[in-house]
């Protein structure tokens, strides 16, 4: 459960994961069933291999919050350091894709996160160093999420998200 949700609210992860994956891969498939059987007081995931694992739901909710934090840092850094825009624009686009895909996995989206966006340092090099640190954290956390979830399809999305962060980190290392 996350802050802002009533104790009796139920969230489900069941057909939406397939839909989210189809969006990522460009595949089309039949609409996911919307009746996932939420009956009392929790969320559910959508997945062709339906996962009603509370742990999976909690991992997705945490991952959304973390990816949104990284997205907010990138947009704040873009405002503060205009010259970094060529690097940050594609990163922001990818971050939005990560957030959207993870959000689409949940049938019932979580409330807006209450996490604090890390402040953007005044110096550009320091800001990039901070970004690199956030990327490493995100990479490791998504990998940890991948290893922890029971749903195989969800694990695949999380592993891919982690790999994307690893690539972004590597590309930043190649920046002058």
């Amino acid at each position, binding site marked *: 459960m996350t802050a802002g949700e009533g104790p009796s609210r139920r969230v489900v992860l069941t057909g939406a994961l397939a839909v989210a*994956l189809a969006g990522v891969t460009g595949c089309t498939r039949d609409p996911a069933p919307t009746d996932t059987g939420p009956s009392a007081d929790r969320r559910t995931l959508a997945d062709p291999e339906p996962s009603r694992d509370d742990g999976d739901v909690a991992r997705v909710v945490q991952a959304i919050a973390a990816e949104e934090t990284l997205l907010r840092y990138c947009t704040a850094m873009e405002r503060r350091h205009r010259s970094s825009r060529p690097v940050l624009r594609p990163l922001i686009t990818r971050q939005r894709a990560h957030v959207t895909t993870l959000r689409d996995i949940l049938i019932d989206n979580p409330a807006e996160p209450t996490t604090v966006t890390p402040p953007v340092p005044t110096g550009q090099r320091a800001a990039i160093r901070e970004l690199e640190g956030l990327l490493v954290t995100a990479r490791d956390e998504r990998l940890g999420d*991948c290893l922890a979830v029971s749903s*195989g399809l969800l*694990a695949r999305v999380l592993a*891919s998200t*982690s790999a994307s962060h*690893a690539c972004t980190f590597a*590309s930043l290392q*190649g920046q002058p």
Partner: protein
Amino acid sequence: MSVVEVLQDCLESEHAAVYGYGVLGGRLAAVAAGTAWRQLADAAYAEHRARRDILAELLVRNDAVPVAAEPAYATPFDITTLSDCKRLARLIEARCSVVYAGAVSHSRSELRELMAGALSDCAVRETCWGQVVRAFPGLSVR
């Protein structure tokens, strides 16, 4: 999909990658000797060989016979220039990424960790070869 099937898929992919980097190494020796590209290819070749050997060992531990490499693999286009080499390397890594991403969804615990690590390594190498970073390596074509 069984563990053995997952491992065999990955091993087949690594056989092709090792072959592809062998082709690349020969061509790069001619068109980019002594450059960082040659070093990158040498490192990637070694990493794919190492991964191949790990997968073969895991299959033996699972009482399976590791799938053998084909005598040769067709390259999808002529490898003549440095640009061709980079393109082929990106293709090799992208194909391996797709296989490992699929393997993640069919594995658990230590095996899933191995597959996720391999996915990340392939995606990073693809980036090093000039691929624009993808939002979902192994899943998306963009």
